[in-house]
């Protein structure tokens, strides 16, 4: 039951959220908007990994999720640093 529900209900909802964040990333008038959209995409993909782990019963995938969240945090910090040091206008 869990597997069917995950693949037909939960993952489609998450994919819809991914698509919406992607719209903001394309539209976003300024660079910070795009970075926020990117952050949202990263966390949603961590969520997708977790749901996939539940659906398939592979508990090992949690390692993947935690490492991915660490990497995305570092990339966001790097982007923030980049905004602060950038010389031209946003």
């Amino acid at each position, binding site marked *: 039951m869990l597997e069917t529900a995950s693949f037909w209900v939960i993952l489609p909802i998450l994919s819809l959220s991914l698509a919406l964040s992607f719209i903001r990333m394309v539209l976003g008038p300024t660079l910070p908007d795009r970075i926020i959209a990117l952050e949202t995409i990263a*966390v949603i993909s961590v969520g997708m990994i977790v749901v996939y782990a539940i659906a398939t019963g592979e508990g090992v995938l949690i390692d993947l999720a935690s490492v991915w969240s660490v990497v995305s945090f570092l990339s966001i910090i790097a982007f923030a640093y980049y905004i602060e040091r950038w010389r031209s206008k946003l």
Partner: protein
Amino acid sequence: MIDLLVLALMLAGALFMLVAALGIVRMPDVFMRMSCNAKSVIIGLTLLLLAFTLHFREIGVGSRAVATIAFIALTVPVASHRIGRSAYLRGVKLWDGTIRDELGEALEAARKNGENDADR
């Protein structure tokens, strides 16, 4: 029974993520996008990881899930604070409906007094 609970938690988490994504599409300026989206995303991910822990019920897997929750709850606020601060100081416009901007007033006053502003 446990399966139903796991399903409910997963659904709630996914809906929170959807609300976060809708929020960043609909909100009018950067700061509001940030303040509504990062938190809904954290709550959603926490619910998903709780469902995960409940589904597997093993101490090794569960402890890693809890560690991931703690890590996300510690780092995402730091990241969004950092982006918000740099966006503000780089001069991203606030929404027209903003009623008061006390940080802008303080920065203006500091500039008038000729204070050294280099470390901002």
